[in-house]
């Protein structure tokens, strides 16, 4: 389990201009809380996605929060606090939490279909059990979307795509912010998003319709 006090964080990666010998600890807890506390829900969701379980997620949020408080003096008021917190969280996670890097096999995602979910609504209307009311097929799918289906689909994404897709799609962060948080080039953000969102739609369809993905074009390798 990670420990905030013993965490070997690469602080330079978080805050390149930090003075390691004299870290100034902000005592302005009120200002910190008013700026950062509104993002606790987002932080917790992100921690859940990263760790995959509630206990580690709580620890990760706490470590992130304390680390952010310690370096609050380096936060520029008026900039995106959520992006700043996510960047700290990602660094702590990579250093202390990630058990082992599961390097994804080099799979080709080139043949992924655009508009997968929309296209399925056109060729296979979801039938609501017991319902006789004809509804627009797109609306029928969108109405079935719930937290569970979204969370499952995101968590089933290959690791290399998961955070990029979640940060852009669910958290509404800018590409540059995602690039900073994950420490990857902005072009990589674009390409991961392009393939990751198409994969996400396949998973959403699988989880919403209860049908398996077509095995032939199942690049995730999780088809049953």
């Amino acid at each position, binding site marked *: 389990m990670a420990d905030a006090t013993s965490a070997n964080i690469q602080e330079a990666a978080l805050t390149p201009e930090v003075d390691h010998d004299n870290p100034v600890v902000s005592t302005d807890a009120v200002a910190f809380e008013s700026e950062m506390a509104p993002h*606790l829900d987002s932080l*917790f969701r992100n921690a859940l996605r990263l760790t995959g379980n*509630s206990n580690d997620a*709580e620890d990760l*949020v706490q470590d992130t929060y304390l680390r952010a408080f310690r370096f609050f003096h380096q936060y520029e008021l008026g900039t995106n606090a959520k992006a700043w917190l996510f960047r700290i969280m990602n660094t702590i996670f990579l250093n202390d939490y990630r058990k082992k890097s599961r390097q994804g096999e080099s799979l080709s995602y080139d043949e992924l279909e655009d508009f997968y979910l929309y296209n399925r609504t056109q060729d296979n209307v979801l039938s609501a059990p017991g319902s006789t009311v004809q509804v627009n097929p797109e609306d029928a799918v*969108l109405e079935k*979307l719930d937290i569970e289906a979204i969370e499952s689909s995101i968590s089933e994404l290959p690791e290399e795509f998961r955070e990029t897709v979640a940060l852009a799609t669910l958290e509404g962060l800018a590409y540059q912010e995602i690039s900073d948080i994950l420490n990857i080039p902005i072009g990589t953000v674009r390409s991961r998003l392009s393939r990751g969102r198409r994969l996400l739609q396949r998973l959403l369809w699988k989880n919403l319709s209860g049908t398996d993905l077509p095995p032939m074009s199942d690049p995730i390798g999780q088809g049953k």
Partner: protein
Amino acid sequence: MASSEDRQLEQLAAEAQTADTVSISSVESTKTEVTTDRTVHTVIEKMDAFDFYSCEEAIKRLNEYLDSELDSAEKADVIKHLQICEPCLERFSFEKTLITIMRKKMCGSVAPLQLKQRLAALMKSDK
């Protein structure tokens, strides 16, 4: 007497009116040249020649469009395409709604109250 081609052209011009003034002038100038053996394809070719994105070009920019990452010129070009391409408009709208709904639903997933209370207490003790 108005031929059927003329009527088709008028209809296309009317539909194009929602696109922008460039396309309208393009359609009208073509209409003056059209003869009975020319069809609406002439209009479409003219419109294509006028910096309209193809479906492929528009779809290539789907994510950046959805995430407000396009510059204003590129965004305008995507919108121009959507105004003349109903299938793309439907798909882009679906994607936009999908993201909006997912984002909204996920706001219902919140951090445990105990965690929030614990952090608030830590802040106080750190003061």
